[in-house]
């Protein structure tokens, strides 16, 4: 991220990160070791916070289930348009030689009458460009154009592709994603409503072969897509995912294109479109499969980038938290993001520590077991509901047992540290996840 000043040396950054971790650990130990030092107010505050946490959890789940159900019912009545508009698909790629063939092949198999593919190599140092060139030309009416430019990041590469497109509908995707044949046909139907500026696709994990990727598959279904479904009922989806975003060209250009000053260009673009007064829909049948990180450190790297990117974008658009463009759901949607990104992870970690502390100090093991059982049953039911709605593999539901107590806790710790580092203002780089070529 360009900050205008010279970034800190990696060793200095590392030292600051260690200091943040040490401070967080010491503060937590002190807080729970000597609660009497904080007086009865502290104990009271703990109990109120915990009760609020459980209440919010139940409320959040109920609201999500209800509105996602309403959205599902609404979609069942929607019809396909009689005329399909011309669509440009932009595929930005940087060092994606393992997956680019699979991605471009999936695009040539789309059941859509009228579209073009614009593949842009962002100065890759591997064979990405050569692999792309194999697809250049005309494939039964689908024109594939391949471009190469100097490395300048994903946002700039997407803008480069958009500038070379002419279609009224533009699809921006990741080069490690594979679209299903019907994806475009379903997504485009929502543009019949002239107030819809963009449609979010349904992203699913392709490589489900270890516990990390299976947990992510469940998270995408339960944690991300169900939230989008609920938000789509109000036409205020707050993240158009990078693997598949479908935009009305005028809406995309009206924002001035993607910005390079955050690490979550997809979220940043979503906020800008909402700020311009457009509605954003979600199409569950516009499915894009993506390659999820397969090892823990890569997962942490991805979530660290997401968390800081979202905070950067929120900071940029903070005026929207209190002011809407005639649409009251936009600030609500953004506040939800603040809640999920900042408040929720801290509360979750805090609640876990609190119950462990109670069990240790007061021997209230029954409370600990009851709390765990309540959350696990709740997660299991939500997982089954979300899986059935998406007609997904029901076997994934069993992973919900590990989801809150194990997976979410790890992700929340990462989010918390990412938030602290963003507040401190540590420099960060985009980095690059190693691809296994499993899409």
């Amino acid at each position: 991220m360009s900050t205008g000043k010279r970034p800190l040396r990696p060793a200095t950054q590392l030292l600051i990160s260690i200091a943040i971790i040490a401070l967080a650990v010491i503060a937590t130990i002190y807080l729970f070791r000597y609660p009497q030092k904080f007086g009865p107010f502290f104990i009271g505050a703990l109990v109120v916070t915990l009760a609020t946490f459980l209440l919010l959890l139940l409320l959040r789940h109920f609201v999500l289930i209800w509105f996602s159900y309403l959205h599902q019912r609404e979609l069942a009545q929607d019809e396909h348009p009689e005329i399909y508009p011309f669509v440009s698909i932009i595929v930005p790629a940087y060092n994606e030689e393992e997956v680019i063939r699979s991605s471009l092949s999936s695009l040539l198999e789309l059941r859509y009458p009228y579209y073009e593919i614009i593949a842009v190599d962002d100065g890759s140092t591997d064979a990405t460009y050569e692999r792309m060139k194999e697809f250049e030309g005309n494939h039964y009416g689908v024109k594939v154009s391949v471009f190469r430019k100097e490395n300048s990041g994903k946002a700039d590469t997407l803008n480069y592709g958009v500038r070379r497109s002419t279609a009224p509908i533009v699809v921006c995707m990741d080069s490690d994603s594979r679209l299903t044949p019907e994806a475009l046909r379903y997504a485009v139907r929502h543009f019949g409503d002239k107030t819809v500026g963009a449609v979010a696709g349904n992203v699913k994990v392709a490589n489900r072969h270890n516990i990390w990727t299976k947990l992510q598959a469940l998270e995408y279904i339960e944690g991300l897509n169900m939230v989008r479904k609920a938000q789509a009922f109000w036409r205020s989806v707050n993240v158009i995912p990078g693997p598949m975003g479908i935009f009305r060209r005028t809406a995309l250009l009206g924002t001035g294109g993607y910005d390079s000053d955050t690490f979550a260009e997809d979220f940043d673009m979503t906020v800008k479109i909402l700020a311009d007064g457009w509605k954003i829909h979600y199409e569950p049948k516009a499915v894009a499969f993506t390659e999820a990180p397969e090892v823990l450190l890569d997962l942490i790297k991805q979530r660290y980038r997401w968390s800081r990117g979202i905070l950067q974008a929120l900071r940029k658009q903070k005026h929207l938290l209190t002011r809407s463009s005639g649409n009251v759901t936009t600030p609500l949607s953004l506040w939800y993001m603040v809640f999920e990104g900042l408040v929720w992870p801290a509360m979750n970690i805090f609640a876990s520590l609190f119950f462990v502390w109670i069990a240790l100090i007061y021997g209230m093991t029954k409370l600990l077991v009851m709390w765990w059982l309540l959350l696990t049953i709740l997660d299991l039911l939500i997982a089954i509901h979300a899986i059935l709605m998406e007609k997904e593999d029901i076997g994934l539901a069993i992973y919900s047992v590990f989801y809150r107590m194990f997976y979410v806790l790890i992700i929340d710790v990462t989010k918390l540290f990412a938030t602290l580092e963003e507040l401190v203002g540590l420099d960060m780089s985009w980095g690059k996840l190693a691809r296994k070529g499993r899409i």
Partner: protein
Amino acid sequence: MRFDWVNILATVIFISIVVTLILAVASYFAYKVREARRPKTAAELRQEGETKVFFSEYKPQ
């Protein structure tokens, strides 16, 4: 012998939460170490005002 299932389950939950939290902090630390040691890309070098001056990448034909 009669098992106290509540205590056993509570112990399992307690250990799993503590181990997960330690694992999460340790993994985050490991990630930071790995990032600090990662070679920088051309774009990152440009952003920091540094350039590769000694050699360009050799690719065998």
